[in-house]
């Protein structure tokens, strides 16, 4: 059976579900219908995609008599699509399951239910589209569906702004992709991917197309400096949709970049890897620093998505550079690392957004400074969040570590590159990846520690209760997957083989046959890692230490008030807050990306008024990059406003003039 056809059938079913969801959404039946249906369909699509990825078979494709004449609507399912379908549908299945429980607390279900399956269908369609027209159409459909979900809680003023910024940036991104495809297709208009592949553009045109693709896909994925919409839009949506947007939709953008850069744009030019590496490393650093400064749980997670996308693009940039110099083994390693990180990030970012949704359900709060002590009240959610935080902080033996370790291993192969610029750039990028990873650990100590540990900072946090079983099951399942893929990374790497093969034309050595389930990217003497043994060793020695001490020393335990050097303060506000936790980092790194202004109003001794500490963080990228553009646009809009008050004859002459001008251009075209 044709895999592409199966995928399309699944997408059609999702669309049908969206249509069915519209009338039923206000009724109590709507939620189980839509989310249950999405769960089943996502699992089915997951099975189809996994089958195509693991057992392959040559590209199944399909042409429907829709879309552009002569081209038709083309769809195909190859290994690369299949891998991203796995990522998207796994996240979708988890999100649907979670939403079965979480969606109960939705105020306006009719604003969420119809769009949820439509959003899923949009992402699936982008991944199987095989011509530029269908691709862009699906891409825009995905953007609009997610925009509708961002606007679900539109009465909140911030959300309305988020939706507006998102819409503008999404249009901009689509526009850039449109240019990229136009350049790739050339004047003769080879819009089908097969035709583009068969006749790749000239080198200069290809570079332009690649830059446009980096801008278009990068703005959707959240690469700096085009990331500004992401931390606004992702948290504004309901949490299961936030999880999908961060975990899956950004990956669709990564897919678009890989498809264009590694598949369609012809032979690689090493110079293009420089912007990819620089932008990736910069996004990583800026994302993690912003995440460390922000005091809103969901925004922290959104910023951390920017960071992880940055790491993925570092991997892709390395893969591109290696491939341009014919170092296929190294390119395969870098590509595998990037794809593995795509998968891992989808797992733990979904998990963390689910956890933030659970916190939101239990307390109604997203602000870190109003939470605290939740681990005692929500033990299961807390445990799963802890696993997610540890995984995203790249701690062994969880899955996040494996992919970051492989990215660093790929960096270590960079001296083999012949270009001087890359030789010097690569270790700098490697150092910034390491800095990013270390800051991410600090960020998640804060993002987990402030809300879940310590004492409750508000009544809502003190009265929190554990969420429903279904939500917990979704979180628990993802946490388990994080552990499993951390312990058996070799199997995951082997599963990626076909996708890497397709993008690079080479793949990493088979890992699952290595003794003891280690992974060895290049050779055993060079580097190896064994998640299973490390996990076993840690568990064994911890249990051993605990047993010995409890057995031979003492197991006595007493609860008492906190010690705190003899001056414990009962007021929960004396705890470290989110801002005070990040103060040292802010002092050291703050000036890179922000303009922090601290104002301290300290009363003199003897005065009885309260002291105030006021912190304002300006976003330097927003003020220097976006505000000037906004001003120019505003001025242009004022100028163009005159066009609104022309006579009919003047309007006609404008149209006529435009037509003549276009004809002149066509006539003078070489």
């Amino acid at each position: 059976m044709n895999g592409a056809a199966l995928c399309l059938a699944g997408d059609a079913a999702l669309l049908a579900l969206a249509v069915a969801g519209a009338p039923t959404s206000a009724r109590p039946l709507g939620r189980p219908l839509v989310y249950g249906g999405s769960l089943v369909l996502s699992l089915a699509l997951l099975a189809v995609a996994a089958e195509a990825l693991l057992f392959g078979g040559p590209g199944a494709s399909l042409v429907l008599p829709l879309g552009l004449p002569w081209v038709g609507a083309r769809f195909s399912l190859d290994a690369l699509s299949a891998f991203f379908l796995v990522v998207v549908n796994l996240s979708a299945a988890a999100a649907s399951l979670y939403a079965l429980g979480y969606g109960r607390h939705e105020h306006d279900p009719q604003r969420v239910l119809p769009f949820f399956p439509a959003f899923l269908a949009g992402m699936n369609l982008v991944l199987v589209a095989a011509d530029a027209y269908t691709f862009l159409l699906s891409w825009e459909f995905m953007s609009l569906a997610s925009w509708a979900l961002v606007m679900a809680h539109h009465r909140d003023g911030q959300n309305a702004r988020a939706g507006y910024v998102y819409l503008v940036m999404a249009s901009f991104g689509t526009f850039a992709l449109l240019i990229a495809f136009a350049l790739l297709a050339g004047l003769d208009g080879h819009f089908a991917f097969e035709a583009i592949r068969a006749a790749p553009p000239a080198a200069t045109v290809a570079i332009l197309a690649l830059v446009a693709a980096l801008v278009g896909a990068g703005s959707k994925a959240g690469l700096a400096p085009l990331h500004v919409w992401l931390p606004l839009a992702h948290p504004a949506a309901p949490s299961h949709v936030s999880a999908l947007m961060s975990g899956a939709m950004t990956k669709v953008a990564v897919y678009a970049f890989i498809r264009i850069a590694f598949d369609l744009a012809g032979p690689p030019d090493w110079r293009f890897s420089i912007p990819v590496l620089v932008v990736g490393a910069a996004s990583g650093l800026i994302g993690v620093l912003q995440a460390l400064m922000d005091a809103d749980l969901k925004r922290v997670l959104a910023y951390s998505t920017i960071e992880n996308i940055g790491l993925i693009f570092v991997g892709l940039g390395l893969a591109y550079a290696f491939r341009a110099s014919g170092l296929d083994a190294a390119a395969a390693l870098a590509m595998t690392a990037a794809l593995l990180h795509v998968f891992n990030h989808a797992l733990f970012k979904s998990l963390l957004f689910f956890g933030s949704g659970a916190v939101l359900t239990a307390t109604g709060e997203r602000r870190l400074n109003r939470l605290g002590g939740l681990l005692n009240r929500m033990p299961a959610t807390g445990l799963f969040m802890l696993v997610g935080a540890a995984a995203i902080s790249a701690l062994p033996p969880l899955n996040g570590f494996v992919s970051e370790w492989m990215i660093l291993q790929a960096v270590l192969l960079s001296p083999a590159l012949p270009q001087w610029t890359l030789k010097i750039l690569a270790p700098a990028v490697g150092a910034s990846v390491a800095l990013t990873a270390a800051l991410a650990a600090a960020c998640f100590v804060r993002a987990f520690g402030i809300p879940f540990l310590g004492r409750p900072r508000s009544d809502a946090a003190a009265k929190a209760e554990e969420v429903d079983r279904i939500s917990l099951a979704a979180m628990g399942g993802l946490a388990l997957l994080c552990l499993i893929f951390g312990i058996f990374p070799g199997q995951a790497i082997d599963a990626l083989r076909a996708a890497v093969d397709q993008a690079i034309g080479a793949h990493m050595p088979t890992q699952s046959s290595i003794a003891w389930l280690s992974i060895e990217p290049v050779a055993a003497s060079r580097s190896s890692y064994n998640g299973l043994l490390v996990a076993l060793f840690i568990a064994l020695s911890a249990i051993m230490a605990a047993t010995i001490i409890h057995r031979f020393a003492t197991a006595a335990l007493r609860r008492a008030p906190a010690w705190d050097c003899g001056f414990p303060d009962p007021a929960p506000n004396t705890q470290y807050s989110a801002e005070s936790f990040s103060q040292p980092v802010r002092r050291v790194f703050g000036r890179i990306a922000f303009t922090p202004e601290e104002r301290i109003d300290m009363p003199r001794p003897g005065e009885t008024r309260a002291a105030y500490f006021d912190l304002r963080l300006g976003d330097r990228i927003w003020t220097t990059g976006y505000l000037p553009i906004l001003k120019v646009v505003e001025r242009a809009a004022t100028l163009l406003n005159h066009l609104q008050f022309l006579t009919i004859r003047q309007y006609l002459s404008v149209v006529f003039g435009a037509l003549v001008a276009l004809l002149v251009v066509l006539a003078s075209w070489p």
Partner: protein
Amino acid sequence: MKGLAFDVSHLLAGGLVLLSFVQLYQNRLYALLNVYSLQAFVLALSVAWQAFVQDESHLYVTAFIAFLFKAIVVPTALHRVIVQLGIQRDVENVVGVGPTMLAGLALVALAEVVMLRIAGDADVLAREDLAFALSVVLLGLLMMVVRRNAVSMVVGFMSLENGLILAAAGAKGMPLVVEISVAFSVLVALVVIGVFLFRISETFATVDAEALDSFRDGRR
């Protein structure tokens, strides 16, 4: 022998770059002077090693001059200046230490790329020395730019000059007279700067070179 000769000169020249970085990191004047003195000593060693490797006896003279003046006389003189003028002993940076070091790294990378491009087919020893020397020169300039205090600007200048001597020693066939004249011109410069320092401090009661700026026309 070839391997050892290369290794030692690489180590010494790299040590000079390292000490330039240590100078950038220092925030106390005395410590800065000590590091500078150490750098001059390493420079003398490096030049002496070049003399041994290239079998050029006049380089020993250069090494000796470097050791005598740069490692002993100049630091002692500056030390006395600091004591006599009662200069505040903390170094004030215009830019923070972290960004300065980052800029320094970028400069070293730049120096290496440039040298490997233009001197790619030169003698290994010379090319190595040239890349390091250019780094030391650039780092010295950087220090002059980022420091406020006139004394540390002087140290930056002297350390820059260390880089020049390293370059001269690495290039074969540089006549002794050139090196001596370079050394003396630096000494003259030091005297001039010393006088200059005394003048600033008498006039403004500080050696913060930015105090001079307020006397320029057309500023602000």
